[in-house]
């Protein structure tokens, strides 16, 4: 990746060229392929992702592998960059992405962002009603006394996220959400400064994490699961992953 440091202009030109190529690949794919070549499509190129994330990024039965489909492309791209550099640690992901260039990761992010398989039926919760009520309160109102903002204040009133960098929180299982919040709390998951989720998670207790993860996992699919456009609402505080 010398180009990033020594020739940004060349890198930008390459990105533009690649973006054009990606478009060509998408339109010409059907005619360009021959029997002896794999399909010239993104779907064929991301088959390595599917055992864990599903054919269209809908997720699989393993609760720790998240749904990717329909999340904002900017969010997915940031995660791909973080896995590639090792900032976000999960060795099987770090390994797969290590030598893939930025424009390709962008194309992968766009691919999964543009897929819209239906959201799964929420699974019945294993926690008590009181715990769910605590989770709902934190997610929808936060706890100003403990400096905890409501999830909805950034992830949107419908929890569907906002373009380009804030993910929706629907279609994820409680174990996954809880593991990620744990990762933020213990510093094993980090993001660009100011690392807003680190600040939020740092104020949560174990009980808060259990409650909010459980409640989020019970949410039914909204009529429109798409992330809202950039700038639909103002964020309560700065976030490195969502530049203004």
């Amino acid at each position, binding site marked *: 990746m010398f180009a990033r440091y020594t020739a940004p202009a060349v890198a930008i030109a390459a990105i533009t060229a690649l973006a054009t190529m990606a478009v060509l690949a998408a339109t010409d794919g059907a005619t360009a392929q021959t029997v002896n070549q794999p399909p010239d499509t993104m779907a064929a190129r991301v088959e390595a992702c599917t055992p864990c994330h599903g054919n269209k990024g809908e997720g699989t039965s393993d609760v720790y592998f998240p749904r990717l489909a329909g999340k904002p492309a900017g969010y997915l791209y940031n995660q791909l960059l973080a896995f590639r550099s090792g900032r976000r640690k999960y060795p*099987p992901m770090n390994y797969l992405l290590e030598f893939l260039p930025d424009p390709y990761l962008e194309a992968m992010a766009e691919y999964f962002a543009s897929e819209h398989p239906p959201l799964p039926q929420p699974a019945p919760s294993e926690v008590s009603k009181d715990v769910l009520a605590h989770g709902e309160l934190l997610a929808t109102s936060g706890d100003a006394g403990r400096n905890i903002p409501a999830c909805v204040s950034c992830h949107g009133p419908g929890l569907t996220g906002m373009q380009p960098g804030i993910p929706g929180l629907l279609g994820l299982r409680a174990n996954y959400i809880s593991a990620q919040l744990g990762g933020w709390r213990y510093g094993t998951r980090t993001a660009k400064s100011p690392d807003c989720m680190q600040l939020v998670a740092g104020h949560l207790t174990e009980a808060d994490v259990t409650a909010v993860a459980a409640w989020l996992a019970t949410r039914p699919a909204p009529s429109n699961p798409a992330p809202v456009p950039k700038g639909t609402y103002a964020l309560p505080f700065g976030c490195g992953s969502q530049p203004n």
Partner: protein
Amino acid sequence: MGFKLSIKLLSVKLLALAAFTTAAAAQDKTGDIIARGEYLARAGDCTACHTAPEGRLFAGGRAMPTPFGTIYTSNITPDPETGIGKWSADDFYKTMHSGRFPDGGLIYPAMPFASYTKVTRADSDAIFAYLRSIAPVNQKNKPHELRFPYDNRQLILGWRTLFFSEGEFKPDPKKSAEWNRGAYLVEGLGHCGMCHSPINALGGTSQSDAFKGGLIPMQNWYAPSLTSNREAGLGDWSIKDITDLLQTGVSMRGVVYGPMAEVVHNSLQYLNDEDTRAMAVYLKGIAEPSPPPAASSALPTSESSLLISLGKTVYDKNCASCHGTQGEGKPPHWPPLANNQSIEMQSAVNPIRMVLNGGYPPGTKGNPMPYGMPPFAGLLSDNEVAAVVSYIRTAWGNRGTPVSAREANELRSAPLN
């Protein structure tokens, strides 16, 4: 008078022009040397070690795990305090050529000076000129964390006696200029022998074992022999297939994954066609025909045949859609498995790891959006992994041997990065 004046003016102008062109020529020449140095630094893959993930270019600080402890790479930017800003071209050459710091201190052989010693003075100077031209970064080197007794640098003297022979590359007059250029790149800056030679318990490679393959310590990938056609010997490959593999990461014969993907990504994809071809000519030339491997397996015959029959079922269900029912693949993107040397080698480490972890070839200028192989670690049991690897190693005329579920299990914990 007017005439004289204009002559005088003209000559001043000419002088100025001459001075300008000389300066421009000098600048061009310096620019050329820096550009050549950058090219050579890529050929030497300096960045693989001297740039940390998310770190500044060549500021060092990357942790290199070794069997003897962790080594942290050094800052080679021109920062005078923490980098090599105070070094001279002589100092730099001494480091590359003799494996010694400017003060005479011994360098750990994680730095491939046993290969870099073959680099010419002119090439060393060009790399140095390039390193002087990049942005200085003030970042202190981290001390190494080596276990006793390896924290004693004097031990390096013993290693040097056993494994280091200092000296620039000597062309073989009996071979072509192209072969010699390839040999210079492979044996020198390319430092291919660092992985493709067996590493003994002392962390060294003896001359007689050069390019004979070996398990890369700490990474648990097998770097195949470059001389045996039973491994990655390229004796029966076409020059085009070899250059494709080196430049783009994929070819009609096979695809690079793991540590070799890194080498293609950081280094080989940037080499020009002439140098790539020279390396291919040399690599094809050093391959020795080997006798067919003894088809012996540590497994009892009954277990082997059970594995292979289960393996066919696993293969037809999970693998055949890309690699074909006869292992023919759809090369270059979906590699063939029939007559694929990397599957048939004595060591089954690489095919087992590919089934467990999958992988992407590197994204390169020639192949910017590579196709990936899915990881099967979560889908297949140890027994199924062993079965399918046994099957592909023995089907379609492949001459490998079956592997056990235990071998598959052991590689589940192999480091992935």
